[in-house]
């Protein structure tokens, strides 16, 4: 994807950096805002999130009391999760040339604000958000999801 010269320079400069760079291309998104305690849970293990942390498809994002996190996905979808929230990013894929892909996320508890991105614009049916009682079809722009059941997915 990148300029070959840049890749070569990176490989020459630092092998590990080139690896990190390749991973970045597969990431679903990046953490942009953070307050309090936020965990990113994946099969390989759980880690505390920081601004700049990468988020991948099938990650689970968990916020603590008085905490929040803001994540921008590769298709420019902007998400923010409020306090005591469990957000499961079930699937994410985005082709930067065709804008084909999929975004499937579940809010198990807590709250989520969404500003939809390029994927929803090109392929509205490829974007799905759900809660314990609902499934949302997105036809653009901005909305808030708040899950009523405080126990669902509680840990």
């Amino acid at each position: 994807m990148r300029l070959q010269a840049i890749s070569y320079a990176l490989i020459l400069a630092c092998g590990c950096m080139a690896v990190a760079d390749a991973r970045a291309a597969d990431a679903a998104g990046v953490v942009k805002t953070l307050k309090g305690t936020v965990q990113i849970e994946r099969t390989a293990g759980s880690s505390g999130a920081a601004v700049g942390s990468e988020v991948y498809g099938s990650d689970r994002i968990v916020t603590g009391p008085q905490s929040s996190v803001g994540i921008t996905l590769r298709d420019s979808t902007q998400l923010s999760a409020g306090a005591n929230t469990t957000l499961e990013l079930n699937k994410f894929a985005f082709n930067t040339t065709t804008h084909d892909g999929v975004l499937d996320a579940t809010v198990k508890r807590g709250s989520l604000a969404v500003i939809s991105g390029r994927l929803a614009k090109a392929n509205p049916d490829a974007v799905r958000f759900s809660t314990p009682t609902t499934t949302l079809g997105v036809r653009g722009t901005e909305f808030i999801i708040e899950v009523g059941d405080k126990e669902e997915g509680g840990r």
Partner: protein
Amino acid sequence: MKAAIRSRALATGAAFVMLAFLAGCSTPPDRIILLPDPEGKVGAVIVHSATGEQTINKAYAGVDVTSNGAIETTMDSQAAVQTRYAALLAARPPRPVTYTIFFLFDSATDLAPESVATVKQLKAVLATWPAPEVLVVGHTDLAGTQEWDDKLSMRRAQTVAAFLVKQGIPAQQIETAGRGKREPLVPTAEGVPNRMNRRVVITIQ
């Protein structure tokens, strides 16, 4: 006899209290609220539950959905939403910003002269952006085949990326892509050259 009547009344009373208690304790509904974008435009969300479906398409309109699938429409005020969800809305990432750089016909290398000024603005924005990502996406006009235009648009993106790196923007923050002729700025018929469509769009997010 009297005692029996009293105990039945007590039991009935207890049942009513129990029902009221259960109703009060039932799970609060899931709530979806639609917001306008900064220009006041409103999209739509179609909410499906186990038993129904409801489209919301007005600013601050919403639905409450109970665990049995019942959907009730709601209407909030801007002030109420901004107060109730203040912390949630404050946590939103910064909105992506875009800059456009134009190209000469069939060229992947000749940038418009205003590009240097654009890069200056870009660097100022990048300096304060949290974990910045620069997406550099090339576009063509509708002259040429899809295959040719895909390659041309990618070369344009790479030209701009190289230019940005030379101007001091870290290469690892930059991702390039070519959209070919899929997203013309000015819609034209197939095969029509158009200056406005020969461009690279830089998005910071």
